[in-house]
């Protein structure tokens, strides 16, 4: 058996680096209160890659904003290494779905940004930035401006910039959503390689099943409104992985399993959206 579904508590739970407990968020809308996220709990162990997957409208981005500290009014607690977090935390590095590089800075200066904020000496700053630029495979583009790069390259600049702040936990919100499928697979390779090299604890928010399976140790499947954890799927595909794994039978089984859980939710989401039209 290459994968198993089980409740939230398991072997990782003894020493989580990131822990979310009973997270709920309600929005007031014109049609009355809307529960975006309902009582979501999970733990992420050091070095683990966890994905949160769900249909549009399951509160994924809300969860991203809560864990990243950008949303302040919510119920429940988020703890990083046992410390309760309110507001942005230096241990959490965020990568956004939207294009987020600074267009007025070169690639090098973009990646230097968090080091500038932390007052790292200039020489050290440049050295570190160059290291992370080469890690995302953009060596030679240091002096270019974002406008001169492709969408995939810009997203890698944003990734290097966040990695340069050396966060304990990397938090990504559909970072490849705007990219084409092939670029997405190849960038997935890059993420796998980086994760392996840095042993980076990562939480990925996505709606792409293949991407989640390709990258994750564990996937949380969310239900459509209100967003709850429907099932936890452990992906036992061997590491180190590359995008070649998408051709294996085990990969197909994992995708099928996640899709089984997701199909019902996505259908419900679609019907709901059509009903409101």
């Amino acid at each position: 058996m290459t994968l198993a579904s089980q409740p939230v508590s398991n072997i990782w739970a003894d020493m989580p680096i990131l822990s979310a407990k009973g997270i709920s968020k309600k929005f007031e809308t014109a049609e009355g209160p809307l529960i975006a996220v309902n009582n979501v709990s999970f733990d992420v162990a050091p070095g683990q890659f966890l994905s949160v997957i769900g249909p549009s409208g399951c509160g994924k981005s809300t969860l991203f904003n809560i864990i990243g500290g950008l949303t302040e009014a919510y119920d429940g607690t988020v703890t990083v290494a046992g410390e309760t977090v309110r507001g942005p935390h230096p241990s959490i590095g965020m990568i956004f779905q939207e294009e987020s590089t600074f267009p007025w800075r070169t690639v090098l200066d973009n990646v230097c940004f968090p080091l500038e904020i932390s007052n790292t000496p200039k020489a050290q700053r440049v050295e570190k930035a160059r290291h992370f630029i080469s890690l995302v495979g953009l060596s030679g583009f240091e002096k270019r401006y974002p406008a001169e790069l492709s969408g995939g390259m810009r997203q890698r600049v944003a990734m290097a910039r966040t990695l340069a702040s050396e966060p304990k936990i990397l938090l990504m919100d559909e970072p490849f959503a705007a990219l084409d499928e092939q670029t997405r697979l190849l960038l997935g390779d890059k993420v796998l390689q980086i994760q392996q090299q840095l042993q980076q604890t990562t939480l990925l928010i996505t709606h792409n099943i293949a991407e989640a399976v390709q990258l994750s140790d564990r996937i949380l499947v969310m239900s459509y409104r209100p967003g709850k954890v429907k099932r936890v799927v452990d992906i036992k595909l061997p590491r180190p992985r590359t995008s070649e794994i998408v051709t294996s039978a085990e990969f197909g089984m994992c995708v099928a399993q996640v899709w089984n859980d997701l199909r019902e939710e996505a259908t419900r989401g679609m019907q709901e959206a059509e009903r409101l039209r």
Partner: protein
Amino acid sequence: MNAAAAMMLRSVPAAVGLALFLGLAGVAEILLRFGVLNRFVVPPPSDIAASFGRLFAEEHLLTRFLATSQECLYAMVLLAIIGVAAGTALQQMPLLRRACETWIASLASAPIVLMYPLFLVIFGRSNATIIVMGVIAGLPPVILKTVEGLSGTRKVLLDVGRSFSLTRRQMFLKIMLPAALPTIFVGLRLGLIFSLINIVGVEFLINFGGLGQLINDLAERYDLPGMYATIVFVILVSVLFFLATERLERWVGRA
């Protein structure tokens, strides 16, 4: 394509522009020579071109040009400092913004130049009057575009700043201001146009200073070719400052 050919290709638009200008001047010349237009109202372009030598020698055109340019430079510095500061204050204080934005916008269309007697009383018949009136006329677009640029900072860039725990000051200096810079410079260029119009207008009205005073003199002497030639130099000031702001924008953007 080799470098020489590329340079040739790049100079095509400028050449076409110049040809168009010369063509129009030629048409005006012909219409005037055949008496279709009255040459006591519009001087022939050839007369205008011929008057430059006389203006430089007898009317100190270069000194006048430099005087107006200098007033414009002071006005630009003040515009940038006061306009960006005021725009920032407005953007940071929503109440103040809602209270003032409309009347600042309406100020842009007010004929401020007609208030020159007031400024004459305050500052006397001096450069100060000219510069202050130029600044006041140019302020609205700088202020409004600063507000627009700062408010228009993309939310995701602010989120990046928040995720790195930037202070309010860092957020402003490192993200909002650089993001707003292109918009602010649009405002500054627009403001400078208003400033120049008012600077030359006040020079004309109070008969003091650079090109505006010379235009006044020449108009009173009914030296129409000289007057139009001087107006060409007013346009030259405008071009000069347009290029200067472009340079400045590139330089500030990198720093």
